[in-house]
């Protein structure tokens, strides 16, 4: 028996090995269209941005662009507007990300309890997420309008203000307006994600805690919160990345104004290109932003990599 089975088993193994060595082309064929598209629309422009960032290119005299080395990068650190933009970017990200989380966390905890009409509440709170940023901007620009704004009207009626205020006219209230708009549209996404994480916590953990005599607060503190920390950390990281390059609402509601008080790096880069048709310097500052975000992205990817067995 052994003499006949032995060689055939070895043969099978040999066939398997040779099959493994031959490269299977099918997966490469399947990924080719997506990879080629990404190479064309993302990788090539990204490399092109690096090239533009070391030139003095301007859209109106593109042919005459000259190599200027790292001048654009050095220039940024002596540029008052860039320095303001950098610190405002940080303020914008921290204030928005933290406020969204402070609202979303209790909201998700509440929506995780059972009550009449919960499904309706869950569905309707998602609406702000789907509203286009141009519409979000219009809504909140109107809410704070000097003449027709609801916020002015309500505050005057309540006696807090004696007359209508131009909210987007002063740096802090202009900032607050954009933060309000961004928080309104951003909370739903946070809430749904935290809610999903809450629902993934096994009920037995609460049972066990209750049997050990844990109070409601202790169950939250020692069961819910530790289970939520990974999701919260991921969300904050992801939001940090998104918020620091978001331009829409700031541009549409205040234009970064008054003056350049509320510029962010992304907005500054965008405005340089849009209004002055500059290409080199805005590329350089966008790349500096991207480089910082790349580090954050690296962390994010490492974390989700561990959570996905298929990666």
């Amino acid at each position, binding site marked *: 028996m052994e003499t006949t089975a032995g060689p055939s088993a070895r043969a099978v193994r040999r066939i398997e090995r040779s099959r493994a060595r031959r490269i299977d082309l099918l997966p490469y064929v399947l990924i080719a269209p997506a990879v080629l598209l990404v190479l064309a629309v993302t990788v090539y422009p990204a490399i092109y941005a690096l090239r533009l960032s070391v030139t003095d290119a301007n859209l109106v005299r593109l042919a005459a662009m000259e190599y200027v080395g790292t001048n654009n990068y050095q220039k940024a650190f002596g540029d008052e507007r860039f320095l303001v933009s950098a610190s405002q970017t940080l303020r914008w990200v921290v204030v928005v990300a933290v406020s969204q989380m402070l609202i979303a966390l209790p909201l998700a905890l509440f929506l995780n309890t059972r009550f009449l009409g919960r499904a309706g509440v869950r569905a309707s709170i998602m609406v702000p997420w789907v509203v286009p940023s141009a519409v979000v901007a219009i809504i909140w620009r109107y809410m704070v309008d000097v003449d027709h704004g609801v916020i002015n009207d309500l505050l005057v009626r309540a006696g807090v203000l004696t007359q209508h205020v131009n909210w987007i006219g002063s740096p802090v209230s202009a900032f607050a307006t954009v933060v309000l708009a961004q928080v309104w549209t951003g909370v739903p996404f946070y809430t749904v994600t935290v809610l999903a994480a809450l629902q993934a916590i096994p009920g037995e953990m609460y049972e066990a805690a209750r049997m050990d005599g844990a109070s409601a607060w202790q169950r939250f503190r020692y069961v819910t919160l530790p289970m939520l920390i990974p999701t919260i950390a991921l969300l904050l990281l992801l939001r940090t990345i998104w918020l620091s390059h978001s331009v829409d609402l700031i541009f549409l509601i205040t234009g970064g104004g008054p003056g350049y008080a509320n510029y962010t790096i992304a907005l500054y880069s965008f405005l340089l*290109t849009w209004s002055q048709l500059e290409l080199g310097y805005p590329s350089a500052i966008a790349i500096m932003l991207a480089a910082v975000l790349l580090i954050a992205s690296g962390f994010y990817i490492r974390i989700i990599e561990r959570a996905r067995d298929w990666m």
Partner: protein
Amino acid sequence: MAAGRFARALVNTVWQPIAGALIVFLALAPFAWIAIVAITPESALFTRQIEYWPSEVTIANFFRMFELSRFDLAFRNSILVACAVTALSIGVSISAAYAFARYRFPGRHALIISLLLIYMLPGIVLLVPMLVIFKTLGLVNTYTALILAQATHAVPFGVWLLTNYFAGLPKELEEAAQIDGCTRVGAMLRVALPLAVPGIIAAGLFVFIASWNDFLFAFMFTSGDEVRTLPVVLRRFIPGESGANWGPVMAGAIMTTLPVAGAFLFFQRYLIGGLSAGAVKG
């Protein structure tokens, strides 16, 4: 005593729906308010005293928006661009995602990581080079420019979401199909693809909504009404200091939002799963 206990029981069952209603109010009130403005006659909007419910209701603002701008063209453009971006990016994402989920091949891991990094790349970095590339190729102010620009985000997103989805489907059905004589591509098309329909709907809708809502690329790469999308047209009506056609603008804002909000509410069962499971949660 009994009355006190009854009151407490009543409060316990009632506070949650009341809190829920309050939350819904906060989420929807700003949007509801512009809907009210949209049906308020323009004459009533010029007074400083706000009418929270208009004494007179009109739909004139909706028609007025079409007179003030080429809103008809903007609608057509938004639909065309969003459909094209969705078809293109989901089309290439399905096959790539299937390969990433079902095959192990050299370079796979590096490619997935690169796609994620590219997904995280700020759009602002691509704005400048794309402007130059599109200008050189004569693509500024064309649908092609908008579709390609929006695909930068849509393709990595689609691949990521769908890879997650395919990876969660049981492999055994495809293996059974192959044992029964189906080819590998046949098993993918006839077995895996139909099973992945909910995931494909979710990914497609996310891409459609993102494209419909996109402002930055659409604003940067268009200069004429023939290709401008709804958000870009709306932007022209956001006033700097004061003075705006608030009635028509709000009508325009409502018309811009309703298609995506409607699609979202209709398909929310698919979307919420994708939102939390595929897109962010680790």
